[in-house]
């Protein structure tokens, strides 16, 4: 699982990208009945046409004419005779192999509706391509009608970028990007939740297995129950850390390796293509759709990520993550161990697990509000109280947390862990030898009072 995990994760990232490139390569042929007559052939190269008469060279129609409604990378438009009827196509549609029939009515400007017929569902991509094309095209026509040069419109489009700079206590200025911080925070919070839950459950399952297989009797005839409980918790903590490190390294490695080795699958290129295919601007005078406008935006994003990386204190981030991961795990693992010792099988654990996981769940759900208001008193308290602090504090850290808050949170965490472990140990000690009876909360309380 340790090795398969990163492979799966990397696959999850790469596969959708790869699969969608595959999909978009499927060429679709759409038949067009254009009653307006303007979206069909237009002459693009009159000089070539004239020269043909002089040079007697054979010219292909594609060199001279082009449809105003241009083909895209994956759509090819086949113009049918203007007077064709929809029904005639409908009757033979299956045999034609067309993806769809596009019907442009004569009163296009009034009705502002174009119909597309098919025996399948038309994909959203294609619809958007078509609507974008026609909108842009007609807008351009109207501009020309009003004697405005469409190129002027292009030249006045501006995109403004908001650059945020953060003042650090040292008096430096760092470029920040709160979106990045949010993503990082949310990611860290979710990761902590997942790992704490996952490994604590492993502890619980181990305790139950030892109890039902009676091996606990043998082990406890050689060591003290508390030693067994602690050994298990620490052992699984080490497994967790190793697994986690391996995951990070392997996932990173695989994704980078795949990215560099094949540009087709490169995420950046893929994003570009997707953006292009959705927001293609079609200019009737050009064959290539322009999408340069999209590229700057993406480049800006990459730049800001790069810059922002310097504004986040990575040492604090990583150290805090390790601390809260370990501490959160120790806290919940000892509680889960106590629960495991009180039951005979996993189904009986439900009644105990639910109240225990509520703080953790709550902090997970609240991630949104921690992200939006990292300095509110709500976020403050959630990141101080030991049961919710692992998640809450990790979400807040990318935004910067005062050291004294961090210190209080950590200190409280450590004290609570000692208390909880001591209590859990008492329950564990008695629970592992109780068979058959389903323990209730009152029983657990009684066990707390058993003296050695």
């Amino acid at each position, binding site marked *: 699982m340790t090795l398969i995990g990163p492979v799966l994760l990397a696959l999850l990232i790469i596969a959708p990208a790869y699969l969608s490139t595959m999909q978009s390569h499927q060429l679709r042929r759409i038949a067009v009945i254009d009653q307006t007559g303007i979206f069909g052939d237009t002459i693009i190269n009159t000089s070539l046409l004239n020269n043909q008469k002089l040079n007697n060279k054979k010219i292909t129609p594609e060199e001279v004419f082009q449809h105003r409604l241009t083909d895209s990378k994956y759509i090819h438009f086949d113009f049918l005779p203007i007077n064709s009827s929809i029904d005639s196509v409908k009757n033979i549609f299956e045999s034609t192999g067309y993806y769809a029939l596009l019907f442009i009515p004569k009163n296009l400007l009034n009705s502002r509706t174009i119909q597309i017929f098919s025996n399948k569902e038309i994909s959203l991509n294609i619809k958007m391509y078509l609507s974008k094309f026609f909108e842009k095209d007609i807008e351009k026509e109207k501009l020309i009608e009003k004697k405005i040069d469409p190129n002027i419109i292009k030249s006045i489009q501006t995109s403004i970028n908001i650059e945020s700079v953060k003042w650090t206590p040292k008096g430096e200025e760092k470029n920040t990007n709160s979106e990045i911080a949010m993503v990082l925070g949310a990611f860290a919070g979710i990761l902590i939740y997942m790992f704490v839950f996952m490994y604590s459950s492993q502890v619980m399952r181990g305790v139950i297995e030892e109890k039902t*297989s*009676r*091996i606990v*009797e043998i082990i406890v005839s*050689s060591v003290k129950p508390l030693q067994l409980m602690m050994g298990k918790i620490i052992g699984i903590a080490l497994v967790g850390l190793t697994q986690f490190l391996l995951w990070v390294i392997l996932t990173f490695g695989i994704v980078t390796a795949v990215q560099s080795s094949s540009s087709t699958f490169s995420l950046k290129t893929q994003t570009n293509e997707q953006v292009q295919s959705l927001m293609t601007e079609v200019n009737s005078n050009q064959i290539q759709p322009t999408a340069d406008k999209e590229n700057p935006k993406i480049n800006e994003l990459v730049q800001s990520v790069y810059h922002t990386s310097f504004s986040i204190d990575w040492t604090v981030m990583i150290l805090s993550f390790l601390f809260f991961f370990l501490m959160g795990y120790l806290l919940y693992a000892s509680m889960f161990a106590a629960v495991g010792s009180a039951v005979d099988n996993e189904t009986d654990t439900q009644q105990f697990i639910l109240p225990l996981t509520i703080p953790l769940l709550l902090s997970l759900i609240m991630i949104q509000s921690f992200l939006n208001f990292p300095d509110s008193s709500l976020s403050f308290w959630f990141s101080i109280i030991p049961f919710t602090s692992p998640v809450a504090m990790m979400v807040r850290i990318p935004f910067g947390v005062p050291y004294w808050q961090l210190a209080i949170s950590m200190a409280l965490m450590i004290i609570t862990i000692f208390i909880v472990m001591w209590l859990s140990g008492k329950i564990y000690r008695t629970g592992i030898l109780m068979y058959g009876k389903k323990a209730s909360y009152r029983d657990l309380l009684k066990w707390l009072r058993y003296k050695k």
Partner: protein
Amino acid sequence: MEKIITIANLTKSYEHHKALDNVSFDIQQGSIFGLLGPNGAGKTTLIRLLNQIIFPDSGTITFKGRLIKPNDVLQFGYLPEERGLYKKMKVGEQAIYLAQLKGLSRNDAIQKLKRWFDKFDIGNWWNRKVEELSKGMQQKIQFIVTVLHKPELLIFDEPFSGFDPINTNLLKKEILHLHEQGSTIIFSTHNMESVEEICQDIVLINKAKNILQGSVCDVKSLYKTNTFSVNFEGELNQAIIAEKGKELWKIILHKTKNNQTETKLQLLKEIKSNNSLLKQLLPIGNVTTFQELLPTMNDVFINAVKQKEHE
């Protein structure tokens, strides 16, 4: 003979159930000791107390003359009634781990284990997972792990339950062998035949109390019914035999076949010794068999428990 374990006034209750009530007895060093009792009598509790898995409400356990200490468990070997092994762990690894728990070094453990595995001819199980083995196989592994560190005191809780005669025999042989080497062995069981064969002393626990203790011989004598099995040569009339022992015995059984007379006689009054009874029998005919029928441990068990319940 020294006492290796002294149980003194041991009491233990769980919630509303008293598992042991003021139980006291001794175990001689080097003996094979039977811890007997019906289900739910308190045997398992006693064993857990010995192993310091749980602790008594009152009373003491003495080991070799002084109060038992936590480290003493390293001198004990405990074979529980139910298989106690990690199912998904490999046999070899697990055996080494359990041996180390008892204080053996890793190398020491591996050496000793290999020897035992060869002795039991199970060397090729070393790398198999425990769950792949049958119950009898797991039992063997568990047995080896229990005795590996040559403990002074061995505690076996129902070691033969559910095993075929071959495995049972193998285990019995090994237990006797360990006994010869000086270990003290505590047997908890209600398989009375094995008690008969192996145990020297017993204690019988019922309903949390000690209701019977002593050596097997003494205990049997306590419950003897003064019944004898006597066979004569020739086919003798029942009346003749009855006549000869009018006041002394009554005939419980009389059979004649193949020129043999089989009888079972129950004495009606005390006799000085078995020899004096034999003297009375000799005039009747040629005695071919003369044997006192002592109660089986099974009988002792049932009678003792019944007796206490009527008190």
